[in-house]
């Protein structure tokens, strides 16, 4: 792959970036150096706060007036530092293009997609409007946007995330750039879509011969796309090397740590005891849910769901966005009203025929995806926990609500007593999620619904929280619905996997069986789309069609 004679497209030396925060200067990136050769893909990996995105934006002078950038940025022999904005304006979107993490917000919501693409083309060329439109259509076909003619005249909000990212890519390649900066371009997308986008990028790269600087936190994606990798931490380079070298033989502890924290799809699972109790905690009997649509039509969110959760069992609910997995959790927690079937919790019919109790069961508690949003910003941590206990005590009089008990629970999830009087905004993301877990545990539930509890966290934090959650589950023995989009994660924690697609359960069974011998084609596609943190494996998978 890597010919020594390749021209260096971008060469960065001693890049340092400071930000002005109030009156103090904060160093974000320090003496970073790297090169990108022609046709090469360099991935910069790191957790949040590592400075990887700032580095990417600094290359095009997109950081704004509060940032000070020093060092050397050499693009094809032209030094970009100090910024000459007149020069940059000619460079941007022309010789160097960029695509962003959130295609939905990266496009102006008030202009039609085609219009925005045409504008970009006309900005750097002398084409007439008609010619530019023609070229735009061509590009949309090239990025394989379905029904490009229709989409051309639609607004961004009318397209899906994957489709928008294709539009974004079309915009990026419109002027055949020498370098494409991709700032976490697939993070917001579902795995199956992510796989398609990565395929598209690779294809375009080989066709157009551009170099790619790929920013990501996902080692699976790195393994899939990168030729070379640079690992960053706290604004500094940890190590760099070819992808194969880095994954097989990481030099630095931090890299090793990160790699080990990545949940990989473990097909050898089964070491987790399937301690399925015989008594059923939760039972869904052909449950259906319809959400009122904006124009009066209903959106069928759940359709004929049959599901049983037994005591002490962890069931992973897997699916992509819009599959209805979160709705299942919300029905179990009593947040959503069903319009068909029956929900039985701890032997009581909570919804559907024969329901006379409240929709909310005192036996169910929940851990939310967004820990921050799930905590009342105006309540101190101790008060939040105490409130939950007090409410729960209305149906479970045996619960303790003393400060000692609360502090004990906090200690159990690894929170110091000093946080008792803190407000949520004073806690880190991981701490907040620990509070969420503490709250869920404190009321001694028989079922915990965990709705993507770790997806907002960095991998290293994700791992510790997940380990803690698993440990507590085993100790307390509550049943758990673990909702996730990440099959790797599911394989690590669950004894049973339920795969959902468009409001239906397509397949369910013991985790090992689902991972090794999926019977449903969708499950298979899902499994194939997950990039594995192993460049060799990824390359192999790519060569053999799924």
């Amino acid at each position: 792959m890597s010919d020594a004679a390749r021209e260096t497209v971008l060469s960065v030396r001693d890049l340092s970036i400071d930000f002005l925060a109030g009156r103090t200067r904060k160093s974000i990136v320090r003496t970073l150096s790297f090169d990108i050769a022609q046709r090469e893909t360099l991935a910069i990996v790191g957790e949040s706060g590592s400075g990887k995105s700032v580095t990417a934006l600094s290359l095009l002078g997109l950081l704004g007036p509060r940032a000070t950038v020093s060092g050397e940025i050499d693009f094809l022999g032209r030094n970009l530092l100090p910024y000459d904005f007149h020069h940059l304006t000619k460079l941007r979107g022309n010789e160097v293009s960029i695509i962003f993490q959130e295609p939905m917000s990266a496009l102006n919501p008030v202009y039609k997609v085609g219009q925005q693409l045409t504008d970009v083309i006309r900005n750097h060329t002398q084409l007439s409007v008609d010619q530019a439109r023609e070229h735009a259509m061509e590009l949309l076909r090239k990025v394989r946007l379905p029904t490009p003619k229709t989409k051309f005249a639609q607004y961004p909000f009318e397209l899906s995330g994957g489709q928008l990212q294709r539009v974004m890519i079309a915009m990026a390649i419109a002027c055949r750039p020498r370098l494409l900066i991709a700032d976490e371009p697939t993070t917001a997308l579902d795995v199956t879509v992510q796989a398609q986008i990565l395929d598209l990028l690779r294809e375009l790269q080989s066709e157009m011969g551009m170099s790619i600087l790929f920013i990501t936190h996902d080692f699976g994606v790195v393994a899939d796309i990168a030729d070379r990798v640079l690992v960053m931490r706290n604004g500094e380079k940890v190590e760099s090397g070819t992808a194969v070298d880095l994954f097989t033989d990481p030099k630095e502890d931090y890299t090793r740590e990160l790699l080990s924290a990545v949940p990989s799809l473990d097909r050898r699972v089964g070491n987790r005891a399937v301690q399925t109790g015989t008594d059923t905690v939760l039972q869904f009997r052909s449950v259906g849910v319809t959400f009122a649509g904006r124009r009066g039509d209903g959106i069928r969110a759940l359709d004929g769901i049959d599901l049983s959760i037994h005591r002490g069992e962890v069931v992973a609910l897997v699916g992509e966005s819009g599959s209805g997995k979160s709705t299942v959790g919300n029905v179990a927690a009593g947040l959503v009203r069903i319009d068909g079937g029956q929900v039985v919790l701890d032997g009581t019919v909570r919804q559907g025929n024969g329901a006379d109790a409240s929709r909310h069961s005192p036996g169910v508690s929940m851990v939310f995806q967004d820990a921050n949003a799930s905590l009342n910003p105006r309540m101190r941590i101790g008060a939040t926990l105490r409130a939950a206990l007090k409410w729960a005590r209305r149906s479970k009089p045996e619960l303790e609500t003393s400060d000692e008990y609360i502090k004990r629970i906090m200690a159990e999830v690894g929170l110091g007593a000093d946080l008792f009087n803190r407000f949520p905004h004073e806690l880190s993301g991981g701490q907040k999620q620990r509070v969420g877990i503490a709250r869920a545990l404190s009321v001694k539930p028989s079922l915990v619904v965990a709705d993507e509890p770790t997806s907002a966290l960095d991998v290293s934090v994700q791992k510790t929280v997940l380990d803690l959650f698993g440990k507590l589950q085993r100790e307390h023995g509550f049943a758990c619905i673990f909702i996730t989009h990440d099959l790797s994660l599911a394989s690590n924690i669950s004894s049973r996997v339920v795969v959902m697609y468009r409001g239906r359960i397509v397949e369910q069974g013991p985790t090992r069986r689902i991972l090794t011998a999926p019977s449903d084609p969708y499950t298979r596609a899902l499994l194939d789309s997950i990039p594995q943190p192993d460049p060799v494996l990824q390359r192999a998978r790519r060569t053999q069609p799924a």
Partner: protein
Amino acid sequence: MRRYLLPVLASAFVLFAIVGPLLVPHDPLAQNIVKRFAPLGSPEHLLGTDNFGRDVLARIAAGAQVELFTAVSATLLAMTFGVLIGMTAAYSRGPTEGVLMRGVDVMLSIPPLILALLVVAALGPSVPTLIGVLALLFIPGFARVAYGQTLEVRNRQFVEAAIIFGAPRRSIILGQILPNIMAPVLAQASLTIASAILVGSGLGYLGLGIRPPAPSWGGMVADGQRYMSSHPMLMIVPGIFVVSTILIFSALGDTLRALWDPREQRSR
């Protein structure tokens, strides 16, 4: 420290409203036709006298009391009812929501002037009438803010969490939602105090304010305007007081909003 400038100014104003009348050696109602139209800076009457020979400074001080009392009372009333309506509508949804919010819309489309004219015509100008009129005028504003905020907050996850953990309705509304909609409501309240002074003095200007002879700033401007060509200070002086008071209270809104934010509060 700059953050506290406005609260300090506002407190100074409140203080002036409370003790000012005690400090000024004149009765705001005492007429002395012989000494009418004393100019600004007269030894006995610092801000001069009006067409009845009443001391302008004493009237300004007494007027401050009235303006502040009416504005604050009206705002509190409007806030109470507005928040009640807005939260009830947003929390209950369904037909209650429709009736309440359409009612608010209808209230908004009644010209405020006619509302004031009719209420004052029915009850006569007086402090309670003025408070009532102002409260009526500002209820829709609070209702809308509370409604919008409640709609947003009730879908936040910590409210869902409270529901899941079995919180009773009352504590969801009072304990979870209310404190979280208070920042904009308080900002609105401070703006409303400013607006209430503005509108209240405007009503005073139209003769729909408080019962004469009690002084109101708007009424003083209106009276002063009649002697504008010969004694302009009779109009300018109360005008300056109206403007600076409104300025202080409207700027106070931002400060209040910031102070209510837990991010601004130190942990104990």
